[in-house]
């Protein structure tokens, strides 16, 4: 079914987009995690982070941004984010 053939309806409303963005983990401990991200995050912002490793191990963390600093990585603008680990929501091994 080609949904593009359907009509277009103008309306108004609030929207929220949830996206997963990959980050490079620089340093991690039970309480803190430092990452390099393509997008900045406001200090105090809380978000969920999924960490994964070989063997299908995954954990979901609740983190809070405690600081950010722009930097160039390979000529590209990136942000170093310092995050506090608030809690670990789940850990699975597949």
């Amino acid at each position, binding site marked *: 079914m080609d*949904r593009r053939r359907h*009509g277009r309806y103008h309306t108004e*409303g*609030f*929207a929220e*987009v949830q*996206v997963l963005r990959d*980050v490079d983990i620089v340093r991690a401990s039970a309480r803190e995690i430092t990452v390099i991200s393509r997008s900045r995050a406001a200090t105090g912002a809380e*978000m969920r982070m999924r960490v994964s490793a070989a063997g299908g191990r995954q954990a979901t963390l609740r983190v809070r941004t405690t600081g950010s600093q722009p930097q160039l990585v390979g000529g590209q603008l990136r942000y170093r984010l310092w995050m506090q680990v608030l809690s670990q929501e789940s850990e699975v091994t597949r």
Partner: protein
Amino acid sequence: MTWWTWPGLRGAVLEQIPGRLLDIGAGGCCLETPTRLASGTFGFVEVQGPDASIAEVARVCDVTERPGAAAPFLVRLEFLPIALPAGLGVSDRRTRAPEGSLAAAAEKAGPSLTLVRRRRSNGEVESVESAHSAPDSHGYATPERPGEPLAERLKK
């Protein structure tokens, strides 16, 4: 073994980006956002109108930057034919919705839009079916896995 000691640790953050709906159709929608989203980014979009909400798995098709605007990015999203989790509700599309409303748009679009909530006249919010699980839905829906977060499925 604790997560921070895992070798080859990789990470992904789930970002929640607010926006304002400009228009919506069966195949996608256009939003104003304060944050740039890269073309090709996959995500989950929820639109809340005065009378209803819709939720869709979507992909960013195109982003236009408008320097100086309060919400400087115009993001066009394409809805993807991926079923939403079963927990989003039960079917009820038969009640007529006011013309021009989000619920009316969803009603016109048929099974292509997923109406997840509707607000009753007394302000209560009731659940409405994930359209992708309807019998007349497209054939691309993946099996429902209620226990698995949507974000996990998006990464597969």
